[in-house]
Every structure is written in C-alpha cells, then in structure tokens.
C-alpha cells in the first residue's frame, strides 16, 4: 500500500508538471521529451539492475560513494527495511514518469486554445489558468492515468524480485512477488491461486469504480 501511494502520486505529479512545461513553446523541448522517454523503453530488468548498482549497499555504490564524499555515512539502500521499499519506488518512478508525461501532453493538446484566450482577457494569471482550465479539463486524462498506474502498481514484480527479493523480512514485498514466492519457489500452487484471486478481486473492483467515475465525469465545453 505504501508502495502504491509512493509511486502513483509522485509519478503523476511530476509527469503532469513536466507535461505542462514541455507543452509550451520552449526551445529544446523535443530533446527533453526524448530524454524523459528513454527510461520507458529501457527494459525493466536492466533498469532494476542498473539501479541496484547505483544504490549498492556497500560504499562502492554510486549514491553511497557520493554520500561518503559529502561526509554522510553510507546507507544500506537495498538491504535495510528502512530504505528497501523506497529504492524500489525510485525505480518505478524513474521508469514511468515519461509515460505519464506523454499521455498528459496528449491531453493538454486537446484543450482548445480559445479557453486560455478567454480567461486571459478576464484577467487571470498563470495559476488561475492552471486551476480553472487545465486541471478540470484534464480530469479524464488524470482519471485514466490514475487508475492504470494504480492497477499497474499492484502488479509490480520485476524490480522487487531483482533488487530486494521482497526483503528484508517482508518490508518491500508486493502481492505478485508473494504469489511468485509461494507458487513457484515453495510450490504451494493452491495458496498462490488464492493470492491470485485476491489480486484479481482488488483490480476488478478498481476497474469497475473507474468505469463509474469516468462516466460521471464527462466534461462539457
């Protein structure tokens, strides 16, 4: 649950923020768009391994060697119950921001320019523009991104499996990794099936809720 909240909200926040900046007429915006999208095409396995090198718990890791230079003691990013989940979250944020950003850019481009012109004539500043036009009109996009990321975050497996193995203890375990451990490492297929059903039920309920919510939120302009 911490994992879900910890990934979904920052990813969406940063994704939306970057989409807004990169939807404007900045020079170099195509370069930045490409840069942010590169992690999306990177394979999750490779990304997880790269990040486990960067966050390596001995003082040889990139982040730790940096911390040592700053005079801060190295942290056991992957093997302490305090940081393990956080490390997994970082990888997912890193990987998904670009995707969220692209979808938000598409959403932003469907907002008619006239609305902004109208509100500018009414004397609104940047912040009002964002609050009264951008945000409400992006609601369908937001709701889509929110539910898909929520559903996706319940199904996270690869980074957990590779980086922490769900440990230490159960501190960074997720439903799917637990399913894998029970079914394919302990060969308790029946138990694993029960977990699978639980996962399905959760996701099914969320999908239904999304359908209802989306219907109610059709925006007219």
């Amino acid at each position, binding site marked *: 649950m911490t994992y879900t909240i910890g990934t979904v909200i920052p990813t969406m926040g940063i994704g939306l923020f970057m989409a807004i900046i990169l939807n404007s007429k900045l020079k170099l915006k195509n370069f930045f768009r490409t840069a942010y999208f590169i992690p999306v095409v990177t394979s999750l396995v490779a990304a997880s391994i790269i990040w486990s090198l960067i966050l390596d718990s001995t003082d040889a890791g990139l982040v730790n060697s940096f911390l040592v230079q700053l005079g801060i003691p190295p942290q056991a990013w992957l093997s302490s119950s305090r940081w393990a989940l956080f490390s997994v979250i970082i990888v997912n944020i890193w990987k998904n921001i670009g995707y969220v950003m692209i979808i938000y850019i598409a959403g932003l481009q469907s907002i008619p320019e006239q609305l902004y012109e109208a509100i500018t004539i009414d004397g609104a500043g940047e912040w009002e523009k964002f609050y009264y036009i951008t945000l409400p009109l992006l609601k369908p996009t937001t709701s889509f991104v929110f539910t898909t990321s929520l559903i996706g975050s319940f199904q996270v497996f690869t980074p957990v499996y590779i980086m922490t193995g769900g440990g230490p203890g159960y501190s960074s375990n997720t439903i799917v990794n637990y399913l894998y451990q029970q079914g394919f490492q302990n060969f308790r297929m029946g138990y694993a099936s029960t977990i699978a059903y639980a*996962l399905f039920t959760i996701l099914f309920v969320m999908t239904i809720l999304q359908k209802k919510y989306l219907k109610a939120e059709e925006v007219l302009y």
Partner: protein
Amino acid sequence: MKKFIWYFTLIILALFMLVPMLWTITTALSHDTSTVKIQLLPNNPGLENFINAWNYPSQIEKGITMGRFFFNSLVTCFFITVLSILTDSMAGYILARKKFRYRESIFFLSIATMMIPFYVTSIPMFLIVREFGWINKFYGLIVPFIGSGFGVYMFRQAFLAIPIQIEEAAKLDGLSDLGIYLRVMLPLIRPTIATMIIFKAMWSWNIFYWPLLVTNSMDMYTLPLGLTLFKGLNVTRWGLLTAGLTIAVVPIIALFLIMQRQFISGLTAGAVKE
C-alpha cells in the same frame, strides 16, 4: 527569470533520468576497475569489457554467450509479434464485419480477458504448459501469447473505421473473403499494424515473469533472464556488469531514437482517446 527556473528544473530532472544510463555506458567503456567513479567520459576507453561480458555466461555453462540470449529473445519476439498480429487482426476483422450468432458475446469475452491481470492466469497457464511438456521449449515461450484481447479490440476498431463500400466494391470484383482481408483491408489499416508491431515487439522483448517460470536451463534464457546472471556477480567488477547491461539496453534505445514517433504511438496505444 521564469524561463530560467523552468530550464533549471528540466535539467535537474533530465539528469535524474539520464545519469543512470550514461553512467552505465561510460563505466562499460572504461578500463575495468574495482572502484567506481562518477565520470562523464570513460577513462582508458576500450571494448574489452564488452567482449568479457558477451562471453561471461560461458563461465557458468560452457558454450553459451549472450548471443544465445539474443537469439532466444529474437525468436520469441518475432513469433509472438507476427502470430499475434495475424490472429488478432483476423479475429478483429471477423468481429467487425461478419454477422453471426453470439458475435457480441464473443467480442465481449475477448475484451474481458484484458481485465484479468496476467499474473492471475499465470498459475493455470504454467500448469497447462508443463502438461504439454513445453518447459524449456520455444513453444512454451511463444504459444501463450499468440492472441490477445487488446489486439482484437484495436484491430476491430480499425476495421470498423473503414467504409463498408470499399469492401462491397472488392466483392463485386470477385475477391474472396480471404482476398478482401489480405489485399484490401490489411493495407488500409497499415498505421494500426505499425502501432501494434511496436507494442507487441516491445512487450515480448521485455517480458520477464513468464520466461522466468517456463525456462530453467540457460540455453533457453531470453535476454532479460540472461541479465539476471550478471546480478549475482561480485559487485566490484563494475566494467563487466555495466558492459552486459549496455549490450542489452543500447540496441533498443538506438531503435527508439530512430523511430520515436512510432514507438510513442505504440507504447501509448489505447491510452489516448482520439
């Protein structure tokens, strides 16, 4: 001033996104060392790490290089992409155009499969594949994925958007159903096909969970699985590790840089309402 702040934020974020990749590549190009440095350019540049990494799997099992993993991934990816596009588009065509009993229910069932996460079906699927004796076989890697509700849905939508008159004209010219599908309809939905190729290829190239279940001998590992071998390495061999990762990651990124537009439409397929 506002511009400056924007650029500043953008650059900070770009660093967060790009540094992991750049660091991997420069370390891979450097002379293999046991200490790690934050460096922009490789020191003592050379390709020895790549050769070592390419041959590294043979230290665990003789005669296997990363070439083997590439080959397995390519075969799996190719067949999944081609076969699933074939079945999905055929099913999509029939469901869009032909009228028959239970058509709606069949369509509903096929899109309902999208709601069930793969992890949930993986247990029965695994048992079936094992029953067929497809563990460590390409069949086991490929066959479960030669059709998907998502593909059927996308193709059906694409076919529905084509005016029916075109088809009637083709029929008058004496084309058979198969002829219409192959020579008239498929060329008309070329953009959808391109999108789906990217989508399927990316997906099957990166799939990790399923090969983890159905392969356990190294000569059947796909690339993502092969990469996990490097994970078990002593972390002080930075050069070797990062070279292995670079070999796996760079081809895709290069492909992405060349065909950005198609990639983005492939990866966001179905997300944005037109």
